[in-house]
């Protein structure tokens, strides 16, 4: 078809539309050839798709770049802090946290950490993957949470691997100020045996009304806190206190198992450097806490993995935890 013919047809169509708007019948027009009636629209040029594909590629690249900054750079040592002034945990500290020897584990045993995780007598709580679910609820300002995270990180590292874990300090204007610790904000945890669901509800930054909100607990986390961080499992005056650890609903820990004061004015390297020495106070407190948490988790995982749950100290602690009677209402 010639360009003149296409232009004539377009003019006729425009005349018809104008006439219709004016309420008068359109003048008769010469019907277009059959081939044009069947394909009344202008054929697509096809020139747009390369441009669209390029723009789509740029969008994908931007998203991939964000993923690289988040997941790849931290592994190469140039981590992005998830909040505030947090720094990535150094390789040395991470190594110390994840490589407490079996000898140290067994020599420390229960250690000085107390109280023992409390039995709930409830069914095993499982996550979406079907593995036992470990829930931590705390806040970055809280010095007791700061202490408890040390043992928790050591224990969970026996069942899986943390990525993008950052250092943090408790609030500088609270008791046990600036206790060195970690934050779970921005971290990920991978395990073949358990799931981990942490929430840090407030930051360590003071605002006019308290501390800045950081993460909001999920409905499940709220429900666990209101059910198990309350009588009869703990004293009424301590209900709702943090840190709160729900170990697959089999056992709970409310509060820290050792004093944050033992970590005062210390660096992460100094504390972590003592973990493999069972005679140090740090090992007795932190590895002791880790062993108790480990034994509680082993109870939920059916004693897997064997290289962790089969350690004599863990088996002894698990038997001790299992022998507890779950508190009943009124106790």
């Amino acid at each position, binding site marked *: 078809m010639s360009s003149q013919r296409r232009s004539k047809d377009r003019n006729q169509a425009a005349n018809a539309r104008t006439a219709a708007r004016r309420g008068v019948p359109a003048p008769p027009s010469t019907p277009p050839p059959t081939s044009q009636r069947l394909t009344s629209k202008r054929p697509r*040029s096809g020139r747009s798709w390369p441009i669209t594909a390029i723009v789509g590629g740029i969008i994908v690249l931007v998203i991939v770049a964000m993923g690289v900054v988040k997941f790849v750079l931290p592994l190469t040592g140039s981590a992005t802090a*998830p909040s505030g002034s947090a720094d990535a945990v150094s390789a040395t500290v991470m190594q110390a946290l994840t490589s407490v020897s079996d000898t140290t584990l067994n020599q420390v045993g229960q250690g000085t950490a107390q109280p023992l995780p409390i039995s709930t007598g409830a069914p095993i709580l499982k996550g979406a*993957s079907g593995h036992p679910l470990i829930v931590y609820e705390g806040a970055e300002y809280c010095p007791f949470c700061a202490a408890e995270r040390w043992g928790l990180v050591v224990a969970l590292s026996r069942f899986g691997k943390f990525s993008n874990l950052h250092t943090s300090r408790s609030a500088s204007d609270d008791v046990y100020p600036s206790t060195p610790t970690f934050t779970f904000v921005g971290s990920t945890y991978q395990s073949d045996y358990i799931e981990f669901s942490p929430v840090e509800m407030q930051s360590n930054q003071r605002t006019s009304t308290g501390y800045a909100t950081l993460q909001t607990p999920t409905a499940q986390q709220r429900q666990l806190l209101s059910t198990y961080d309350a009588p009869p499992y703990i004293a009424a005056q301590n209900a709702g206190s943090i840190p709160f650890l729900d170990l697959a609903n089999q056992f709970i820990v409310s509060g820290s198992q050792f004093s944050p004061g033992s970590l005062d004015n210390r660096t992460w390297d100094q504390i972590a450097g003592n973990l493999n020495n069972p005679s140090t106070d740090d090992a007795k407190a932190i590895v002791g806490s880790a062993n108790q948490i480990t034994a509680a988790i082993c109870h939920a995982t059916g004693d897997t993995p064997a290289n962790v749950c089969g350690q004599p100290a863990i088996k002894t602690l698990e038997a001790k935890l299992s022998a507890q009677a779950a508190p009943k209402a009124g106790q």
Partner: protein
Amino acid sequence: MSGARLGAGAFALVGLGISIYLTVVHYAQGQVALLCATGGAINCEQVTTSPESNVGPIPVALLGVVWFLVTLALVAGPQLRLARAGSAGWKSLWLVWSGIGVLVVFYLIYSELFLIGSICLWCTAIHVLVIGLFLLALNEWIEAASDVSTADTEPG
């Protein structure tokens, strides 16, 4: 209606459905289950209950409902006689609107990765749909612009 517009309409309807679901979950306060993983890096509940899931008092999911409704109107504009079929101005409006959507998606992905530390699969589905809608809008806009420029150069 062109294939691109039909596809865009389908995308917008799916996105609208997901946004309505997430809005209902938000306001139901635990009475409606959020069907998604809740542990590890994939954690919808962590994302949908985070401070970043609200803009002031308004949940982001509700903003998604509004965005997809407007998108549906833009996609179906000619059919609803809101615009002339092939109108370049209408397609420009659609392109700008979907471009705003993509910018918001960038921010939401940033929030998930760096502020919340978890990824929500429902949100990811929404992000894919928004980006897809933007690319369809871009394609339609380029075609319309191309048609106009071709018509302008044709002899009368």
